């Protein structure tokens, strides 16, 4: 703006060589600052990865995955088997509860509700629900289930995690259903299929890879949750295969339980558990990514 070429046939020099010093410094400075922001985000990630791997890797052995958790915080040595099983069982149960409801809910939003006021309200509230603090889901299940049953159980934890996963599954599934081309639906109804057959036989299979990957991301997020677990499942060190039978445990709960102790042995176990938990969460995330990229429907 400051340099205006007047008159002559010479075209204006737009190469940026004649930028005023102030403007070019401002531009460079801003670019550097913006780049710095990326570094600020990468730093904590690197710190977490480095610390968890370097401190947690030493505890990994065959015993680590199968042994019981030592009862005494001061006892050194391996054992996180119950917590690994607990994480898988409770998260798996939560997935069984939330994914069918979430997928059907998304079917309602995208296939039936569309732009009706009710559907739009549900959509907004599902977004709001993803922002509800996870501990609130724990308190809700504590009041609505644990007090009624009279005991903290693994199933209570699964219910709380299911509440947490539900809005995520709904919103990600709806995104995927939206990508299914309308021609498929029209072809199906053209053949005389009723709407429910169109949905179950055509729309959902077409979107199945996207739904799977979205659900796996929800599972990954739920697997790392601690707050609802300690409220509804309790802080113990044994795994019970029967989720309806008394207190249970998960890796996240073990990290919390052991990290708040001042003893080296328990802190070591916390690091080992953190590495195991991150490995599980990353596994889910990576599998979800692979499914999403391999089997995605052509978006255009």
């Amino acid at each position, binding site marked *: *703006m400051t340099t205006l070429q007047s008159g002559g046939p010479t075209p204006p020099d*737009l190469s940026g060589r004649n*930028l005023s010093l102030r*403007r070019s410094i*401002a531009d460079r400075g801003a*670019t550097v600052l*913006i780049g*710095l*922001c*990326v570094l*600020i*985000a990468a730093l904590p*990630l690197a*710190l*977490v990865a480095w*610390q*968890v791997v370097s401190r947690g890797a030493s505890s990994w052995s065959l015993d680590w995955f199968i042994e019981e958790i030592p009862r005494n915080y001061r006892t050194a040595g391996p054992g996180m088997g119950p917590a690994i099983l607990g994480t898988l069982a409770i998260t798996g149960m939560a997935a069984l509860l939330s994914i069918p*409801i979430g997928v*059907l*809910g998304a*079917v*309602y939003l995208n296939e*039936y*509700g569309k*732009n009706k006021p009710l559907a739009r309200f549900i959509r*907004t*509230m599902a*977004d*709001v629900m993803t*922002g*509800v*603090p*996870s*501990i*609130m889901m724990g*308190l*809700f299940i*504590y*009041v609505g289930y644990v007090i009624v049953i009279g005991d903290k159980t693994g199933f209570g934890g699964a219910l709380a995690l299911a*509440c947490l996963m*539900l*809005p995520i599954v709904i919103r990600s599934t709806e995104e995927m259903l939206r990508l299914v081309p309308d021609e498929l639906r029209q072809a199906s109804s053209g053949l005389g*299929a*009723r709407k*429910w057959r169109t949905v*179950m036989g055509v729309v*959902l299979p077409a979107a199945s890879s996207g739904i799977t990957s979205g659900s796996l991301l929800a599972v990954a997020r739920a*697997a*790392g949750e*601690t*707050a609802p677990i*300690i*409220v509804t499942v309790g*802080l113990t060190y044994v795994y019970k295969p029967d989720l309806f039978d008394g207190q249970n445990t998960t890796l996240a709960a073990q*990290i*919390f339980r052991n990290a708040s102790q001042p003893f080296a042995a328990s802190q070591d176990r*916390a690091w080992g558990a*953190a590495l195991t*938990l*991150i490995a599980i969460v990353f596994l889910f995330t990576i599998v979800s990514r692979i499914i999403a990229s391999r089997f995605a429907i052509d978006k255009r």
Partner: protein
Amino acid sequence: MTATAPPEAPPEIDLGGEARSRRTDRGFTGLVALAGLTVLIVLGLILVTTSVQAWPAIAADPIEFLTGTTWDPNEEIFGTLGFLYGTLVTSLIAMIIAVPVSIGIALFITEVAHRRSRKYIVTIVDLLATVPSVVFGLVGSIVLIPWVQPIYQWWAGVVAPVPGLNVIFDETNTGRNYFTAGLILAVMCIPIITSISREVFATVPDIDKQGAYALGATRWEMIKGAILPHSFGGLVGASMLGLGRAMGETIAVALVIGGAIGVNTNLFAPGNTMAAVIAQQWGESGGLHTDALIGIGVVLFAITVLINFLARVVVRRAEIQMKGAHS
């Protein structure tokens, strides 16, 4: 999927539209509508059940519950102002750090980075979002605190003669304090603010950007003149979503905030937040104490739902303004 679909039957059979098939159709419609309504039902149930359970603890002295700073479960005195204060202070610190950083990352991804490096940066942010909060708490409490503790001490010494600042940054003992909690929360909020900001930036019309460049603007001037004014509303919404996340974060904060009761203007002093105090005291609570903790949860729930709702409205309105269409 679910077991409703019978295995492959020739579609011709359905063409007649028999009553049974029509009934299945209607049943399916009801089923999916019910599934959609679950969201509203669960949200409603959360509010009702927890409020009813917490009522005895709140009703004893509602004004004391919201404005009192004394929290003494043994005497059944439940004043939660200190926790509300802790929640506000820690999330404010988190926002001051996370909002500019996230906007910077989003700008880097949309405007600065090449297509190939863009993918890696998006992955970094995504990975940050997948780290469980308890792991952040673990790294914070065992690794970060010994590192930042001397920095806090040095800084408190530097600002000691400055009136005003020496009230905010005073003596520090353990490194478990409001400020450390704010730092951890900032890291945890970056992914959500970044991803919403990216969506917002993506709605800026290309023609505006090209127009700015055509007028001879540098990249920074283009960002200042074309992108930021266009995105302001959406960025406010993104920040509010981050704020909601920060206020509700429980375990990471519980591990690094120290667990003191009351209001302390010194950011380097231990404190507590609404979510963290529930996690810390849950195991040893009982009776009215548990109800009071649930009461804290109800207040937290109301605050976060309100913030999230407003944020979604703000973001949606900004998007509609930009694209002229519903999203």
